[in-house]
């Protein structure tokens, strides 16, 4: 038997499974456990265009790969920014990277905050903890087109004053006349004289027109559940609320099966969902 006459054409594993190598341009600790990496492609060139809310699969050599949302400005194609907390094996290794170290990146994957649908409306951004990171690109996008929106409200809750993410940027935004920024902490420490309490408690008095608003929400799942309840209590329809979900992901392209939530694949149908689409899934324990 000879198979030589039937030479087959080799194929690569599909491109979305092959990481592109990036170089660390700058590292920065945002809080005690949260850091940002500014990355550029090792071979030069632009980073792939991405939409606010999308994520990358980030690979640390010999350690592993995890999904991390993109935190930079979608208008900038020269720099990729990821902000994450050092909580697991990969993120701990990632936190130890230095300038000029390299890592692998696949993406961008997943759905995006549909900020364009909010044109002509008030925008309510509600973030809990590290949940501000995937919302920041949406903020940049909105600010770049500020005249297209009504009031823009950012409600942010952190555990303690020391955990407030992007503090300088928040202070800058808070100083702008065309933004309403409210920050609260679960526990006041030190000389904090700001608001204390859950981020949900800010919703009742936030300045927006519930009948003409779009809300985008990111934080722990429980926080998002209570936040959406409060938003709906104020009168925003579930169709105008978007949330971002987190699940175990190995491929990012809907083939590995890990991120299933009922009939959706969080990686490709999400991570950003219209709240009314997934509300029934979020109330099911161990789904």
């Amino acid at each position, binding site marked *: 038997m000879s198979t030589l006459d039937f030479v087959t054409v080799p194929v*690569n*594993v599909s491109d979305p499974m092959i990481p592109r190598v990036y170089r660390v341009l700058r590292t920065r600790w945002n809080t005690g456990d949260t850091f940002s990496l500014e990355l550029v492609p090792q071979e030069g060139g632009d980073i792939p265009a991405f939409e606010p809310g999308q994520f990358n699969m980030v690979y640390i050599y010999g350690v592993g790969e995890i999904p991390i949302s993109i935190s930079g400005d979608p208008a900038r194609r020269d720099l990729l920014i990821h902000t994450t907390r050092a909580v697991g094996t990969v993120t701990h290794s990632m936190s130890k990277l230095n300038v000029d170290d*390299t890592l692998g990146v696949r993406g961008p994957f997943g759905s995006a905050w549909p900020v364009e649908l909010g044109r002509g409306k008030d925008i309510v951004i509600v973030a809990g903890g590290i949940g501000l990171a995937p919302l920041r690109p949406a903020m940049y996008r909105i600010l770049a087109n500020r005249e297209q929106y009504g009031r823009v409200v950012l409600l942010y809750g952190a555990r303690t004053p020391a955990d407030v993410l992007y503090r300088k940027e928040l202070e800058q935004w808070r100083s702008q006349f065309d933004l309403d920024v409210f920050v609260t902490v679960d526990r006041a420490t030190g000389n904090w004289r700001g608001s204390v309490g859950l981020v949900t408690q800010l919703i009742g008095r936030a300045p927006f027109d519930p009948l003409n608003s779009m809300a985008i929400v990111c934080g722990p799942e429980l926080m998002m559940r209570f936040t959406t309840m409060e938003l709906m209590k104020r009168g925003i329809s579930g169709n105008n609320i978007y949330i971002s979900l987190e699940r*175990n992901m190995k491929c990012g392209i809907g083939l590995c099966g890990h991120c299933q939530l009922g009939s959706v694949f969080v990686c490709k149908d999400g991570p950003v969902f219209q709240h009314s689409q997934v*509300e029934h899934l979020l109330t099911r324990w161990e789904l």
Partner: protein
Amino acid sequence: MTKSSKADFKSRFVLERQDFQCLLDALNGQGYRLIAPTPRDGAVVYDEIAAVSDLPIGLTDEQERGTYRLKDGDPGRLFGCGLGPHSWKKFLYPAELRLWNAHANGSLAITPDDHHPERLALIGVRACELGALRVLDRVLSGGQYHDTVYEAQRDHLFIVAVNCGRAGNTCFCASMNTGPRAESGFDLALTEILEPERHYFVVEVGSEAGQRLFDGVPHQSALEADVQKATTIIETTATHMGRHLDTTGIKDLLYANFENSEWDEVAARCLTCGNCTLVCPTCFCTTVEDVAELTGASAQRIRRWDSCFTMDFSYVVGGHVRASARSRYRQWLTHKLAAWIDQFGSSGCVGCGRCITWCPVGIDLTEEAKTIRAHSQPKPETKSRKKIHHENT
């Protein structure tokens, strides 16, 4: 057989048993490696064969929940055994696949692996397994992203289907509309007819490639009586299914019974070993693993079959989404029989019965679905929604 080929060629022929080796030789001559059922360690597995004598000749099997035994069957019969633990999935979607290799000499460098599809002749593919390939086609190459290794291998298959002359005790392809007759998706389909005086196959040609190959194999035209015999065999098989699954409204039934207490009952028996997912011809979940060399000079990315029955499968920071056995069995069954329909437009179950046979504690998917149906405690989604609002307003 490429997945796009259709069985437009319904010409039927007769292949005598003594010419069966000629069929294998013809496939060999076209550069195909022959993969077929073959007995090994007391079970029938799919692996390379050299000659017709490697088939499980004269053997049959006894299958029940948690039970599999090979035993003597009709002497001389080539395809008297039903399905074993293997499925053809392993040739298209390998249990272990190296995706790429990384080096870190100063800077990270990633080299993707090349995969050479092989010309494989799959011999003895049952109708339910053709159904499983159709399911995998939709999952792995029907969406936005494709598994290119699967697709390339899929295009290099020659499929010799075999219509079932006997239904196993754990079979229910008739319930899932996948068998026992091979309707499409093959190059050749055989029905084995074993009579005291004559042993032969009625052959249906399903593709141009099948016709080209069969032209080089000694055969005759089939008589109407031969075709009738083959049809009767398949029809009889259809009425002898060992299992039955009522699929009426099964998607809504399972969605509505998320909180059914019967899940606790099956969880008390389930070992969460994952056997069912490994023998399933459509389970497609994988994980990736990084294997670093001891020196640290290189690391490989390996993709492996994974199972939703493991705790780690659903791990996110803060814990495992599906920590209980109850939730993991429910996920598997509900995905297979319900969510799959929403995701891919068909059931994920083809009725092959492997999960029943190979479950070490004998959990029977058809029984579990029946139990849920009999003790349905529907909890419509809208109701739970209202309840939450009520509690908080």
